[in-house]
């Protein structure tokens, strides 16, 4: 048993898995708040990484400031998403919103493509470029930041859902949107919170990903889809499920890349997605509500 390779795979898997976790949480939040799958989630991640890198390149600000600005900009994009989709008042159903997020994703991608002229970007690791050496394997210190933020985000979100008023409302929305509205909670306000929160998380994920891999206007689609697979694995809407799903998916992917066929690593997420859908659609931590007809 090659311990060094095993650890290497584990570290790589956890680093990227943490990013998937944040994306997965984003999907869960929008799903709960609006009943829609947010196809723009991946683009929020892309925005986070690209904006942080662009800010660093243009103004040379300290790294953490670049990250903060990137997250804020992405949050604005989330707000803009809600306004663009729900502002007119004609789109309200989950299916229509889902379709509309596809449009938003395409628009975001198109805007960034034009603005960045298809350039690729990277970021230095937040804690410095010296690698960690554990048990013969080396890992980027970025892994610590990513894992830390993912776990923190999950814990905070779970607490937010449980204890605060707004959080309880979001949780109630996931359960039954119509009843919530009959209690006087505006659909748009719930949706706005959902999209902004999802965007902030996505932006954070992207900023954390940029030190690990090259990013460009194109990076969002695949990330979004993989994050979605992680969300389904863990159970859509459950923060702890997102953590489990994200990390499991990350490690599985790294294992395939490390031990066998790097060319097929990307396929892991989709195979996982299909397996989940065919065996337990509600995921590991989802409520076993009947998903079958």
């Amino acid at each position, binding site marked *: 048993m090659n311990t060094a390779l095993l650890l290497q795979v584990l570290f790589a898997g956890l680093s990227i898995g943490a990013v998937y976790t944040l994306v997965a949480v984003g999907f869960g939040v929008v799903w709960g708040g609006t009943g829609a*799958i947010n196809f723009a989630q991946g683009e929020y991640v892309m925005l986070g990484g690209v904006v942080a890198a662009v800010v660093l390149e243009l103004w040379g600000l300290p790294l953490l400031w670049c990250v903060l600005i990137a997250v804020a900009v992405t949050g604005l994009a989330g707000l803009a998403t809600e306004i*663009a*989709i729900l502002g*007119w008042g*004609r*789109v309200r159903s*989950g*299916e*229509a919103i889902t*379709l*509309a997020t*596809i*449009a*938003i*994703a*395409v*628009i975001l*991608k*198109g*805007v960034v*493509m*034009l603005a960045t002229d298809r350039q690729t970007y990277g970021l230095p690791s937040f804690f410095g470029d010296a690698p960690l050496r554990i048990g013969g394997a080396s890992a980027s210190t970025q892994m610590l930041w990513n894992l830390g933020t993912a776990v923190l985000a999950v814990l905070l979100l779970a607490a937010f859902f449980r204890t605060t008023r707004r959080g309880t409302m979001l949780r109630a929305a996931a359960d039954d949107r119509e009843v919530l509205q009959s209690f006087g909670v505006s659909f748009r306000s719930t949706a706005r919170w959902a999209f902004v929160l999802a965007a902030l998380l996505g932006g954070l994920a992207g900023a954390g990903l940029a030190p690990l891999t090259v990013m460009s206007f194109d990076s969002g*689609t695949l990330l979004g*889809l993989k994050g*979605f*697979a992680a969300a*389904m694995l863990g159970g859509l809407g459950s923060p702890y499920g997102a953590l489990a799903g994200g990390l499991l998916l990350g490690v599985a992917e790294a294992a395939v890349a490390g031990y066998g066929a790097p*060319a*097929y690593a*990307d*396929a892991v997420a*989709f*195979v996982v*997605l*299909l397996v989940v*859908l*065919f065996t337990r*659609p509600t995921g590991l931590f989802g409520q076993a509500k009947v*998903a*079958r*007809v």
Partner: protein
Amino acid sequence: MPVVTAALLVLAPLFMATDFALSIELRFCIWLILLTGLNMINGLAGMTSLAQAGFFGLGAYTAGIAAAKAGVPPLVAFLIAPLVTTVAALVIGAMSLRLRAMYFTMATLGTGYVLYLLFGRAADLTGGPNGLLGIPPLSVAGFEFTEPIALYLLGAVLALIGTVVAHNVARSRTGRALRALGTSEPAAVASGAKAFPLRMFAFALSAFFAGVAGAVEAFDARFVSPSTFDFFTAVVLVVALAVGGAGTAVAPLIGAGLLTALDLFAADFADYEPLIMGIVFLLAIQLFPRGVGGALAARMAHRGIRPTREDAG
């Protein structure tokens, strides 16, 4: 609707018969076949499939690999393609059509993407990201389909047959049962409609159409590459059908027109294409939540003009 389609397909080349025009008209036929098929599952059965681009590719690669690598006679390769895609749809459908609509859509998303990845990564079989070259021309009884006009006629005839089939399915008991299922499932089931077999039929049919389109594509371009069958294409197909009014008879025509226009202008405005497409799509969803076809049908009903059977499907 078949009449309108036939008229279009016959008249267009009479007015525009340059090689370039014919190739554009053939693209229209391919889009039309794809969307007519997609309309079966997305429109008639009401279950959004994101796998149509993947099946399109599966058909194209099957025909291409069979003809170019396995030495299968081109005609046989052409016939195998839709069979393979139908079987694939039956397999995927068997596992996912009992799920709620959203989960089915996600399963088709996964299927489409896995197929796309396979096209690009199974390099020994498919030629990898650079594509599969050297597909021989389709030949039937010695006649080779190399001229643009011959290829166009092939595409047009198949598109017309497809439209007629779709027209008949929509009017048949099966079609009406599917529609009833979409409107009110409990009522339909109580009346004896069996949801699962009906949906399997719609999904398999959509894949069959995609396989045919793929075979045409393979023998037209004589080259297939993964990028033609990516996630963007899958989305674009759903969007085009939605804008046209999924479920209506006219949707595939409108959608195919849109996509052909997009093809034409993409070359000049490649950089702006995603942005423009996204904005158009968003506007379309806002303005026509039921697509152009749906809005038209609703208009007719509103005005007291009894919707003819044409409008209903």
